[in-house]
């Protein structure tokens, strides 16, 4: 089973992101990075599938050279190969263009039975890229997967989160899955592999190498971020202190006044 996992490097979510007033962009200088958490669930699922059914796992990221850190984490968790798509023309790509580019990259790398992505990246929170890749590659998708039930030589059955419950879906291979956090508990990178990963070559592919049309990506994407800004801060409200009986009753009175109960 040939497996590919898409990974995205994002900023550490333990610190609140800040905007650079000059550029209107999120400040990245001096901020630690992390792998978008759902991508680690995707990788774990890929590694388990490869352990159970044979085959190997490749990881793919799009971004600048820095994103090799994320790919090396993928390698240190158990992936065998890593690829980076990097091209200045890709800057400011929207989710459509990102999916288009990654699909082009995947086609140029090889053929895969299962492609896994996180359900969304925790910076853009768009959750579009997985389905977009599946469409570009013309393969089926199962999104928001929280359990992989069965994989055979030609199909995969998974449970996904539905709007009011869950559903079990079977798809013919090849298939693309987007993964929920509850799918699994990602393994930790081990230190022998971490050292090995630091010594592995990671091919860097530009738009020309993968046959991506630069007229469709980056600033030419179908949607554009016009402005970023901080949300209006919530006004902090009243603190109720004192005897439990009194403040408990008072709280309910307030909620009735506010017509929320």
């Amino acid at each position: 089973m040939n497996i590919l996992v898409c990974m995205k490097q994002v900023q550490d979510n333990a610190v609140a992101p800040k905007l650079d007033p000059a550029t209107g962009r999120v400040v990245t200088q001096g901020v630690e990075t992390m792998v978008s958490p759902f991508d680690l669930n995707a990788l774990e699922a890929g590694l388990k599938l490869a352990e159970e059914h044979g085959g190997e796992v490749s990881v793919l990221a799009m971004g600048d050279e820095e994103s090799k850190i994320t790919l090396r984490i993928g390698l240190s968790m158990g992936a065998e190969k890593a690829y980076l798509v990097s091209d200045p023309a890709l800057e400011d790509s929207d989710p459509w263009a990102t999916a288009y580019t990654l699909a082009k990259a995947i086609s140029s790398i090889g053929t895969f039975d299962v492609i896994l992505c996180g359900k969304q990246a925790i910076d853009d929170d768009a959750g579009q890229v997985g389905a977009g890749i599946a469409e570009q590659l013309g393969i089926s998708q199962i999104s928001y997967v929280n359990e992989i039930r069965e994989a055979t030589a030609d199909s995969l059955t998974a449970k996904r989160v539905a709007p009011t419950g869950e559903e079990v879906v079977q798809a013919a291979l090849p298939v693309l899955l987007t993964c929920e956090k509850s799918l699994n508990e990602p393994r930790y990178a081990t230190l022998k592999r971490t050292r090995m990963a630091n010594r592995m070559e990671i091919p860097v592919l530009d738009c020309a190498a993968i046959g991506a049309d630069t007229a469709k990506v980056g600033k030419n994407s179908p949607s554009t971020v016009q402005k970023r800004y901080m949300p209006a801060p919530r006004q902090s409200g009243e603190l109720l202190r004192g005897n439990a009986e009194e403040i408990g009753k008072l709280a309910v009175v307030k909620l009735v006044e506010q017509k929320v109960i």
Partner: protein
Amino acid sequence: MEFKYTDDQIALRRAVREWAQSYLAPKAEEIDVNNRFPTETIVALGEQDLMGLAYPEELGGAGYDAISEAIAMEEISAACASTGSIITGHYLGFDALYLAGNAEQKAKWLRPALEGAKYAAFCLTEPAGGSDMTSNKTTAVEDGDSYVINGVKHFITGGAHCDFLCCFAITNKEDVRHGMSCFVVEKGTPGMTIASEDNKMGIRGARTAEIVFENCRVPKENLVGQLNGGYRLALDVVDRGRIGIAAMSVGIAQSALDLAVKYAKEREVFKRPIAKFQGIQWMLADAATQVEAARMLTYYAASLKEQGVPFTKQAAMAKLFAAEASHKVVDTALQVHGGYGYMKEYAIERIYRDQRITELFEGTSQVQRIVIAGQLLH
């Protein structure tokens, strides 16, 4: 001279921090409260390749350098100081085998220890003799194909939980400095019993034990290094281990500083965070400087060890300075917390107790000064 982390060191810090913060940190409080040695952590340390981190890959280690080991120790101790002590005990426990063991011994005990299959303990300290090994009383007497060990060892980290220990015993009473030898004693060897486990102030998860040897017979092939060469061997092991304790101190201090900074930003008095007050700022600045200085001295000692040049003085200095720096830093951090810092609900309370050991074990701060003075004045 270049102050720059290698790619391996950067990746290692990230990987160890990730693991330590998500695996070790959540159980730090529980093992402290329950006074419990976390045997499951030994398995996990092995899975992470931490049981033989800075030892050669051909022996079963992970092949990192000495500075990497210090970084890992820092990150582990920042998450859980007990675990820092547990892993230090393991490194000390097998280091004699690494330094002086023969091929069979390395295959039988060192490799599984480095790979994480066996947990080792360092069995030197006795009720009458800690840093002064000449006061040790435990003896090993040759008898046919064996040595027979008699005596009492105490404060043995992981003693009740290890798979084997390296026990130092006197083989020539006339001249202990040239009459001590090192023996591997495996768990369950008849004549070795765990008399008790200690109830300590801090690092309570790193349980220490009193071990009694009563006609404990070990085969001759368990003698590590030269007969009567154990005194020097023990000193070498302890020398190398001091850098680990220095790194442990740095990790403890860093964790305390981080908590203090976080608390200072959150805690408001007179309608503003206490971090806005210069009195607090200066305390934090001093603490941060202590941490950084301790870290640099520790890495310097580790780099000398890595280069294979003498490092006894610098290791003692790093251990002395880092232990005392961490004392000041945890004290400051607790003070920044005000009365809350004195409460069990706040992690700083445990860290404050955990820190204290760093000035006591592997030679007290006073013993470090003796070592340093000895190096200066010899």
